[in-house]
């Protein structure tokens, strides 16, 4: 859906009062109710898609969300190929491999980005800087393969636009090898840091039943024990030919979500390595000329969950109806349950746990229940959550020293 959840005005909300993205109703410390107002980023992409022909829509769809700009075009291309018959026999072999490589690389860069921001929200700015420092080589890889750091324009109905040259493969492998120790460092830093554990354990919990009721997707669902991963359920590209495993956690709190995302980084690296070894030579595009009338559904596992595209065509070269649904549409709605009940200092990290667009979580405004007077806002909540980390650190220190 094009109505990506986005933040109204500037990640730093200006002085005057206007509808914020999250409006937390608070009594004292406890979050009582949450009111989510979206629509500030509504650009009417679905309507625009109806006025563009099939090749142009791929570019339009790519600019829905900045961080997962390879999932939407992939899902759109799959939807159109669904009309033409199965993706496997439409798209040449090598293109399938390239698609999977780009998709997994983009998952790495998106998870690293989230890791940095999550660290920022609980008070470790150095984690933010380091995570984004290790993200830069991944963006360099994108620049090498596709020419641009974010919007790749790689996907095309029936294949891929650019090929991965022979000389790029070793560089890609070297970067991945350098990335693994960095992920180990983050894995170690997050897993056994007592303060982070104390800070993220059983915070913003989403139980399995709630996850089912709210139909959440991706890491948010997998952290609550739901075994949903489109790459396994409805394999696309070469996902079913490679061996990797879906990461499932049970307790549904933010710690589980962080763990799922970090372990997925390892899986993505493994997938890309296998793809690079097994990539055959051959054409990369089946240049489809026309699309017959019909309906098609395309689904892809984006870093945040299932990206869903539905296309209805009537034989002309323009889609009649193009329904887009991004994973955050469902995940963010589930914040109503996850954030309520927690303290306001945990609110920011809870809202960030579903990993919506990065600036969505900074425009939170806290009004106390009775007279709706503005008590705190976005950055203040970040301060609160950072302070809570510090308090836990003291307790743990005293705990150890006592």
């Amino acid at each position, binding site marked *: *859906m094009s*109505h990506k959840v986005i933040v109204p005005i500037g990640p730093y909300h200006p002085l005057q009062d206007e509808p914020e993205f999250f409006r937390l109703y608070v009594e004292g410390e406890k979050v009582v109710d949450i009111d989510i107002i*979206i*629509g500030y980023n*509504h650009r*009417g992409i*679905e*309507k*625009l898609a*109806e*006025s563009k022909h099939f090749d142009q829509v791929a570019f339009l769809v790519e600019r829905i969300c900045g961080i997962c700009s390879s999932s939407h075009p992939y899902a759109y291309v799959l939807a159109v190929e*669904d009309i033409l*018959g*199965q993706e496997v026999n439409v798209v040449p072999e090598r293109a399938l491999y390239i698609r999977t490589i780009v998709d997994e690389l983009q998952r790495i860069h998106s998870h690293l980005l989230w890791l940095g921001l999550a660290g920022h929200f609980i008070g470790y700015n150095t984690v933010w800087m380091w995570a984004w420092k290790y993200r830069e080589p991944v963006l360099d890889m994108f620049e090498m393969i596709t020419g641009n750091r974010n919007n790749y324009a790689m996907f095309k109905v029936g294949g891929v636009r650019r090929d991965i040259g022979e000389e790029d493969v070793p560089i890609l492998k070297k970067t991945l090898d350098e990335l693994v120790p960095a992920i180990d460092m983050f894995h170690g830093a997050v897993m056994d840091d007592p303060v982070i554990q104390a800070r993220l354990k059983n915070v913003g919990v989403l139980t399995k039943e709630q996850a*089912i*009721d*709210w*139909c959440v997707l991706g890491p948010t669902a997998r952290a609550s024990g*739901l*075994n*949903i991963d*489109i790459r396994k*359920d*409805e*394999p696309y590209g070469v996902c079913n030919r490679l061996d990797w495993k879906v990461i499932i956690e049970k307790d549904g709190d933010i710690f589980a979500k962080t763990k799922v995302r970090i372990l997925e980084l390892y899986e993505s690296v493994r997938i890309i390595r296998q793809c690079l070894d097994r990539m055959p030579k051959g054409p990369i595009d089946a240049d489809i000329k026309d699309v017959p009338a*019909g*309906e098609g*559904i395309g*689904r892809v596992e984006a870093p945040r969950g*299932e990206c*869903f595209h*539905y296309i*209805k065509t009537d034989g002309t070269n323009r889609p*009649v*109806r193009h*329904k887009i*649904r991004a994973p955050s*549409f*469902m995940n963010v*709605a*589930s914040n*109503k349950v996850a954030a309520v009940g927690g303290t306001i200092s945990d609110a920011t990290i809870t809202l960030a746990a579903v990993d919506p667009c990065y600036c969505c979580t900074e425009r939170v405004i806290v009004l106390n229940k009775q007279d709706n007077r503005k008590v705190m806002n976005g950055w203040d909540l970040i301060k609160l959550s950072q302070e809570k980390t510090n308090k836990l650190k003291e307790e743990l220190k005293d705990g150890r020293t006592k």
Partner: protein
Amino acid sequence: MDMRDKIKERLDKKIIAWEEKSAKRIYFSVAKEEIFQTVKFLFRELGLRFVIASGMQTPTGFEILYHFSDDSTGVIYSVRIRLEDKEHPQVESITPLFPAAEWIEREMWEMLGINFRGHPNLKRLLLAEDWPQGQYPLRQDHES
């Protein structure tokens, strides 16, 4: 194949059309009044996950597709209903069944003007406050 048989055997007379486009895509249409029961059956009993509902304007009126995904096999079941009434299309809201549907129904109400009876808080989701009342952007007649 058992999932298909379960659906067929349970809803047999209610299903108007059944089309298996491919192994993973099944579309079947149901009468407008039956949608609440069908969705309840698919979601509660069969445990299918509600993916999204997509509404569109067709020459004969409006059409809503409720997409359900069976994650164990990866098959998508899309339930289609047709609303002939052009001026005031309306249908039973499924938000009471599960809260996930709240946003998408608000969006369809805002964009296509389909009214959802029984929706807890049917108010504007995406369009700006000063958007003219009667205008529905996703309708065919509305300029892009």
